[in-house]
């Protein structure tokens, strides 16, 4: 009995002596560091099973725990298109809403979010509601080189590009495309688009967003025999467009209009005999050092161009040579390299989780899973 009493006294005294936890404040919300660390990444989840409710999740792929990995998110509705400013603390999401969820009056809009708070700070109405609803890439919404204009791909199914004045937050023009698609920023204030007949058209715009000049590269590839993927990597103004059968087409986008560059072979003869080909949902990326990454699969044939693959090949685009083959831990679907001097290679894998590799060594570091993602089929390294 004396022992029990002593223990009770010690417990009571101990709790009395310990400091109370401080009272928490109501209403506290965090903000994010500016600029974001270079290795952070936006994961775009299109929510394929309920597209109304897509989301953009900002993650730190270097962090070891979910608590440190998940930095914040915002919504992106109906297979949205995404773009980031490098000169303003804001990002842009072209999305579609209905007044009653999936029905009622339609509103297409570019929502402007601020980077520190991930809050919508402005909207640019896309009058006419022509925004393309298409599996996301990196070139359905793009800023001009000088970041004065924002350009959105429209599809009704007639194709055109909506031009917005970023500062004024208004749609200022619509450029009709002659059977072409996508928005590849070109020069100071223009864009180029690939066309159905294997040609490319370029427009340079004036400060008001009106067409100042037009230029066409006549048919330079065969869409049936060896189509260009519409998902290039653009490194220092040079667009690198892989083809279905394993070639690379360079297109210089740094000037007033697109200029056709070199075409080179991505697949050495040995692997060509095994029908190694590029493929995937978002199969290309590049790091700040200009190393280009490409998802590859063996036994390629007609119809395998979206299958993904078991390897990522790394290329030196200046020397036009392969530097490295990275064998993936799990079959890869989409990739993105992070910014900065020690890039990570992120791979959306077949399980819809994200594998993180050290890009220079190909060593698998961790898998990002259970962070609220369902179909995260494209990633965007922060700018």
């Amino acid at each position, binding site marked *: 009995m004396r022992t029990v009493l002593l223990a009770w006294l010690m417990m009571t005294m101990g709790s009395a002596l310990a400091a109370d936890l401080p009272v928490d404040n109501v209403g506290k919300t965090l903000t994010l560091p500016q600029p974001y660390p270079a290795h952070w990444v936006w994961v775009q989840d299109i929510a394929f099973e309920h597209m109304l409710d897509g989301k953009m999740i900002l993650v730190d792929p270097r962090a070891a725990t979910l608590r440190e990995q998940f930095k914040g998110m915002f919504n992106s509705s*109906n297979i949205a298109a995404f773009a980031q400013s490098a000169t303003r603390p804001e990002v842009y999401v072209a999305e579609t809403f209905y007044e009653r969820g999936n029905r009622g009056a339609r509103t297409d809009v570019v929502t402007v979010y601020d980077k520190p708070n991930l809050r919508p700070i402005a909207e640019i109405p896309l009058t006419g509601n022509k925004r393309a*609803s298409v599996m996301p890439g990196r070139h359905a919404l793009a800023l001009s080189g000088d970041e004065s204009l924002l350009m959105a791909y429209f599809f009704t199914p007639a194709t055109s590009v909506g031009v917005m004045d970023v500062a004024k937050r208004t749609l200022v023009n619509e450029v009709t495309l002659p059977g072409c698609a996508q928005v590849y920023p070109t020069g100071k204030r223009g864009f180029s688009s690939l066309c159905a007949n294997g040609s490319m058209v370029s427009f340079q715009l004036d400060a008001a967003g009106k067409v100042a000049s037009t230029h066409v590269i006549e048919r330079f590839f065969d869409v049936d025999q060896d189509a260009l993927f*519409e998902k290039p990597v653009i490194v220092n103004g040079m667009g690198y467009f892989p083809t279905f059968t394993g070639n690379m087409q360079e297109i210089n986008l740094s000037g007033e209009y697109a200029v056709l560059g070199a075409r080179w072979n991505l697949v050495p003869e040995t692997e060509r005999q095994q029908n190694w080909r590029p493929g995937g949902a978002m199969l290309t990326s590049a790091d700040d050092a200009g190393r280009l990454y490409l998802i590859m699969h063996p036994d390629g044939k007609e119809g395998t161009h979206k299958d993904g693959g078991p390897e990522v090949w790394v290329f030196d685009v200046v020397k036009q040579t392969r530097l490295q083959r990275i064998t993936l831990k799990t079959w890869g679907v989409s990739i993105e390299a992070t910014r900065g001097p020690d890039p990570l290679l992120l791979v959306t894998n077949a399980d819809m989780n994200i594998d993180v590799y050290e890009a220079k060594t190909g060593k698998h570091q961790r898998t990002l899973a259970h962070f609220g993602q369902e179909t995260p089929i494209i990633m965007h390294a922060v700018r």
Partner: protein
Amino acid sequence: MITNWLDALTERMTRGVAQRTSRRGFLGSMGATLIGGAAFPLLPVARADAAEGQPSPPTQDPGDPTTCDYWRNCSIDGYLCSCCGGTMNSCPPGTDMAPVTWIGTCRNPGDGKDYIISYNDCCGKTSCGACFCNRNERDRPIYRPGTANDYNWCVGTKSIAYHCTVTLILGVATKSP
């Protein structure tokens, strides 16, 4: 080992237990799970012929429309309406069929002919969620819309909300692809 992410995605979306070794193996099991291995209209004909000891003549439209390897699905990307309250050529109740589409050219193993298939999306409700299927034969990037299955083809409908896809025969291809 997962050798095709589309299979994996299909598995995720159907929440099924499946073989992971191949698209055909997986989808075969998925079809059995979903419909209990039910026979399809032309299959009894083939059985009758087989019973007479004759080689099975080509059936006219063979296969199971609720499986990804059904011949009309050679360039489809989405949910099969046959699993969503519709059929291979009719939209489920309360959805609207999009009037504009992408097309594929698929070989019918029943008669050996290549058919032009129109993939019309059924629209106005959220994703069906059953029987996801993505095959990309002769699919091309979105700069050639008429053969691009990456678009949400709920175009020209009241709502762009995508529900599922039907496979309509437009005719026999006059020239093999």
